[in-house]
């Protein structure tokens, strides 16, 4: 009986648990990323570090030593034989209905953002790694594989299209909160 409850704890109770916070934000095994701004940390098992363990692999700024200009410029392979696109839902705060777009059609962030701007007739502002999107009340965000809401543009394009589950254009104060100090 105890065992069964314990097993259920891992699945059912957690799913129905009431708590504050964005849906999907829970501890999970993460691959450590070396990019600035990606605050994922290893899960509980590796958290009990002791002196014998190697130095904790927290986010490493500037490693490997590739200029961000280069990192942001790599395009995913344009595989002609790959049937089917990557369709994701695109929502915008305040808009009555959602859209669906195929991420494969775009070769990079500029095209994607232009298309999104055209679809909803608004201006997205200028992206900078440090400050997010300046000059606009909107911030493009996406939900990634782990259920976290991330600012569009921080990771290389190839990584983005494989991890993006849905897109949401946030407006107003929520957007501004994401924009600063990420």
């Amino acid at each position: 009986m105890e065992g069964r409850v314990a097993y259920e704890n891992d699945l059912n109770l957690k799913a129905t648990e009431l708590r504050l916070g964005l849906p999907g934000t829970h501890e999970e095994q993460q691959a450590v990323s070396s990019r600035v701004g990606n605050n994922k940390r290893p899960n509980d098992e590796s958290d009990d570090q002791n002196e014998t363990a190697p130095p904790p692999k927290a986010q490493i700024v500037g490693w490997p030593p590739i200029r961000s200009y280069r990192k942001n410029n790599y395009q995913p392979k344009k595989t002609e034989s790959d049937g089917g696109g990557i369709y994701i839902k695109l929502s915008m705060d305040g808009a009555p209905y959602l859209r669906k777009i195929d991420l494969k059609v775009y070769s990079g962030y500029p095209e994607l953002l232009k298309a999104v701007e055209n679809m909803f007739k608004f201006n997205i502002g200028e992206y900078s790694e440090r400050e997010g999107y300046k000059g606009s009340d909107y911030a493009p965000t996406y939900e990634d594989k782990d259920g976290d809401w991330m600012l569009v543009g921080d990771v290389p394009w190839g990584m983005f299209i494989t991890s993006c589950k849905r897109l949401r254009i946030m407006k107003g104060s929520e957007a501004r909160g994401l924009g600063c100090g990420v």
Partner: protein
Amino acid sequence: MSEDDERQQCPPSDLEFVSNKARNCNATGSGSGHPELQSVYLDQVLENVLENVLHFLTSKRDRNAASLVCKSWYRVEALTRSELFIGNCYAVSPARATARFARVRALHLKGKPRFADFNLMPPDWGAHFNPWALAMAKAYPWLEKVNLKRMSVTDDDLATLAELFLGFKELVLVCCDGFGTSGLAIFVNKCRQLKVLDLIESEVSDDESDWISCFPEGESHLESLIFDCVECHINFEALERLVARSPLLKKLRLNRYVSIGQLYHLMIRAPQLTHLGTGSFSPSEIAGQGDQEPDYVNAFAACKSLVCLSGFREIIPDYLPAIYIVCANLTSLNFSYANITAEQLKPIISKCHKLQVFWVLDSICDEGLQAVAATCKELRELRVFPVDAREDSDGPVSEVGLQAISEGCRKLQSILYFCQRMTNTAVIAMSKNCPDLVVFRLCIMGRHRADHVTGEPMDDGFGAIVMNCKKLTRLAVSGLLTDKAFDYIGRHGKLVRTLSVAFSGDSDMALKYVLEGCPQLQKLEIRDSPFGDAALRSGLHHYYSMRFLWMSSCRLTRHGCQEIARAMPRLVVEVIRSADEEEMDDAVEILYMYRSLVGPRTDTPKFVTIL
């Protein structure tokens, strides 16, 4: 220049000797009978002769040496130096430089330390071009060329260059920032003699200014236009007209907003090009079935002088066969933005027999590198960049690719290789097969990663490189390294001038070995390695001979760095924090120190403290 500036005192004894000799020899000219006047006259003649002779000296090292011979030579050399190179803009002030050198036509300045490229310190650290621009405007109104690396350049500076230097001809900006398209617009518009505008890996802000349209009408003197790093749309029609009226244009590197269709139109107007950056190398929209595609093969065939090809920013590999026809003449090929496979590379590389410089992504895998090794026997420089620049990604290239290159490309001089796994065996093989190596930079992306076959540290591999490559001047190490690796470097790396260290070494001994063993060491950049104040002290005898030392996330303390600052008054010792940190504990996050003739700079931001 900064290297020998301290050694300005030199014995004037030669001067008298020379004058005496001249008098006895009854040399040229009449002059008056008066002995003093005659000797002054003859000194003048000798200086004129010297001036004419020194004009032939172009290498800065030769010139530095010549300036040390005696006061007379120092003076004449200063008068005749036309290209001024300053490796650290803070080592000397604009005032001192313009005071010593009277007739400079070309200025080459370097600013920020290289590790700033990787976000290791907050932006706005310094290296402003502005004070130099203003000083040059007063001192050298005939200035023709400016080459800046890692400097902060504003739109106003660009305007200054264009407006105050009437004969300005060449601007090269490498890894610079602080300006935008509106600055470019003013610059290209006012610079009527412009021959070269090269923007390389610089950050250009998009002020939505149509700068391409601002080139003046009429025939242009343009020989080189490089703007592949400019991340904004350009007015293509204006560009096409510009190319059409630039008969001397030899180098053109387009940004990724130029489609392959547009590239075609430019190429047929400029078949004389020697260097081409192709832009996106994909169509602006997906070409429909019935659309007539231009004859790209023909366009490339017409460019009979093409030797350097780059670009391919958003490549659609189907278009690659268009370049086959120029491969046989290529000496330089840059595929480092093209995510292509080995199979897509092979038909191209197999034709590139003359290739000397090759930059590529690791998407070609070890197999692709084997293909390179099989054909490119003249290869001098190879750079392999990672598509996925993370520590724990899959690595498509490994020791297999490195070994293959070492066996096929025996003339290799420079290599930059990013990988996830490596073995000592392959590195040792390269040290033996490629004795001409001058630059060896290996980046094993997983920190502290050992030889993946033996589990040993990578000490022996790097040791072999410094032992066998007798011409090595630049080295970057990575992987699991103990103090032994640095012992090797100290013992055998006698010509090493630049050393990059990250996540390596066990103790202070490692840094000591290097500082005590490498007499030619000029530039040392270290991050995340266990070196402390004691190690820092061991370099006191050498720091004045170095351009700079960078140490970040090591084990330095403030009072350790203070000691150095006290012991060496001509060293500027900067302690740099991350922007929002307050000055708290004794630990030093970043140390950046460099020799300087002018003491601490006055433009430090809040996060920099000079000890």
